[in-house]
């Protein structure tokens, strides 16, 4: 690692930081200081912009560096992560995006609290958001630290700490002064950079092999020393049935968890209507899919051009595979081309981390302020008064029979054990970073269940407990059979539920009056949460 690399990379880092601060300043010039603006960016983003932002939020360092590294080291098994991460978006598209936009105002807790007793639900949902965010943040910070460590070599221990502190401080600045608008634009910029960088690298890799993907694969397989087994599942997870179950559970968690991630959910509120939310998800899926396909090429390319041994030597979890590949493609680590490309890729990775941290910080601040603080501060009030908490003119569902008090999610709210978070010491080649992300995703899977299971008979406490339970099981997981507990709240609702919930359709049940909200444009697709059929008719003539 020459000083040339370092200086160039540091310059690029600083350029990115300057650009993001510029965006923050520009955005905060015209601020009105409303809650709408802070949490939801004024709800004025277009589907394409929002799609880029969602994709930007999702394509974190874990995918760019971590999973490509996994593929470089272990071949096919890394691909399974990508597939899980990607297929998860179908769940978001079908079950979550429009629903959440219809029902809530800023956070997931709004959605769940629409149908159940408000205070305990808010506290539960808010807490789970914060837990997921913290887990995710730790992963990203670990990534930032390793990146800086890579850059500065062994003298990096102090620099790593300073980096983490610096990044944290910077995030507070972004979020406080810029709110959702700034973080969204930062995500968009970063998404563009990331896609650009990935496209450039992929093209270079394919050029090396003259467009022959087959040859890329066989070279990778040969170089790995495992031959054809490198390209088949099982190299990492196929050992014994314990690790296989482990893996199946992981596959489930990946798919179910994405839909519960708070910083993703909060991005459905930055668009005016549910239809726009759906369109943003479509954009995001296109971008993320393309990006993941490229990650596959990069992972196998790193295996083919660098060899897994070299990748492992640089970083045991493979997190540096892509930067090293970039250096190689530029003409070797010592040449200027290599140095430049390396610096760019490192800067993009750093930008990725910054942007995701900003997004998560904002989402968790929304949870803390909008859900937790407001709920804990408020004493129990008569239901007529709906204060803070984003209820607006929401009407309570009184028509549909009992709504049992949500159970206090008592002791299950312990933070899951930290084995996944011992920096790197897990002994798990996936790396602490990826594992912590997965822990967050496991936990978030429980929150998804909370969304679907909300309603009479479903207690708020159980989904949260389920989510925490999942992550609790998962973290000590290496070696324990890890099957997610069946979620009690996860029921498919029958079609005609009087005055209560809807099933899987967005528009179920005639004549629901959607919640009217002061922000306008929020009534879309008929609305289906917390609505009372008032008066003689349900509003429908059927």
């Amino acid at each position, binding site marked *: 690692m020459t000083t040339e690399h370092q200086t160039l990379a540091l310059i690029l880092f600083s350029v990115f930081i300057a650009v993001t601060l510029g965006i923050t300043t520009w955005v905060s010039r015209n601020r009105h200081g409303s809650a709408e603006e802070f949490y939801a960016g004024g709800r004025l983003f277009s589907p394409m912009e929002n799609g880029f932002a969602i994709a930007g939020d999702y394509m974190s360092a874990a995918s760019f560096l971590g999973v490509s590294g996994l593929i470089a080291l272990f071949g*096919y098994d890394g*691909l*399974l992560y990508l*597939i*899980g991460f*990607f*297929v998860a*978006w*179908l*769940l978001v*598209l*079908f*079950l979550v995006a429009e629903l959440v936009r219809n029902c809530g105002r800023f956070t997931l807790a709004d959605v769940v609290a629409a149908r159940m007793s408000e205070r305990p639900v808010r506290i539960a949902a808010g807490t789970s958001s914060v837990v997921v965010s913290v887990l995710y943040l730790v992963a990203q910070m670990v990534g930032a630290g390793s990146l800086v460590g890579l850059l500065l070599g062994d003298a990096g221990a102090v620099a790593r700490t300073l980096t983490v502190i610096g990044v944290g401080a910077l995030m507070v600045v972004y979020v406080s002064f810029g709110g959702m608008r700034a973080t969204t634009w930062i995500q968009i910029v970063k998404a563009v950079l990331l896609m650009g960088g990935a496209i450039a690298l992929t093209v270079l890799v394919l050029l090396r092999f003259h467009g022959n993907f*087959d*040859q890329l*694969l*066989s070279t990778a397989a040969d170089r790995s020393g495992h031959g*054809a*087994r490198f*390209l*088949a*599942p*099982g190299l990492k*997870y*196929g050992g014994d049935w314990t690790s*296989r*179950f482990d*893996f*199946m559970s992981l*596959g*489930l968690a990946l*798919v179910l968890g994405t839909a519960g991630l708070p910083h993703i959910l909060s991005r459905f509120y930055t668009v005016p209507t549910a*239809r726009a939310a*759906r*369109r943003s998800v*479509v954009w995001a*899926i*296109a971008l993320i*899919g393309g990006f*993941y*396909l490229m990650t596959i090429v990069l992972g196998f390319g790193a295996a083919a051009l660098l060899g897994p041994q070299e990748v492992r030597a640089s970083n045991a979890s493979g997190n540096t595979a892509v930067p090293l590949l970039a250096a190689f493609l530029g003409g070797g680590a010592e040449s200027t081309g290599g140095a430049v490309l390396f610096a760019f890729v490192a800067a993009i990775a750093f930008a990725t981390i910054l942007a995701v941290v900003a997004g998560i910080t904002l989402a968790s601040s929304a949870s803390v302020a909008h859900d937790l603080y407001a709920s804990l501060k408020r004493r129990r009030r008569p239901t007529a008064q709906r204060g803070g908490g984003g209820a607006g003119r929401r009407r309570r569902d009184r028509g549909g029979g009992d709504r049992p008090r949500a159970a206090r999610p008592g002791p299950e709210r312990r933070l899951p054990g930290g084995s996944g978070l011992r920096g790197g010491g897990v002994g798990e080649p996936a790396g602490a970073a990826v594992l912590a992300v997965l822990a967050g995703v496991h936990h978030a899977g429980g929150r998804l269940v909370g969304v679907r299971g909300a309603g009479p008979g479903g207690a708020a406490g159980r989904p949260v407990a389920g989510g925490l339970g999942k992550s609790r099981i998962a973290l000590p997981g290496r070696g324990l059979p890890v099957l997610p507990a069946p979620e009690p709240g996860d029921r498919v609702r029958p*079609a005609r539920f009087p005055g209560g919930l809807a099933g899987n*359709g*967005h*528009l*179920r*049940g*005639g*004549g629901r*009056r*959607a919640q*009217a909200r002061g922000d306008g444009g929020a*009534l*879309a*697709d*008929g609305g289906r949460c917390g609505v009372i059929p008032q008066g003689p008719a349900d*509003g*429908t*003539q*059927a």
Partner: protein
Amino acid sequence: MPPSRRCAAATGGSSSPRPCGFFLWYVAYVIAATAAPGMMARPVFGAVNVALLAGLGQFLSTFLLTWAYARHARLRRDRAALDLRWTVFEQERGQERARARGTGR
């Protein structure tokens, strides 16, 4: 058919089977990858094996389902949803007017 019914009808048919479908396909893929690595490792052409094709198949199915869903929603649900929205707005306005008239008396 009143707008709400149209919406419900348009939705009910499509959203239930589809989520189950892709999920089952995904679960089948995961199980096959873990429990039947031998079958997955069989080469199909050149270095590409069944596993790689299955993985790419997952990607492809995801893209296709996304496209199909968006198209379906655009063609069927959106108009009905907008109609419903207007109906509800009108109702609310009517109610408010009635209420105002009532209190004004």
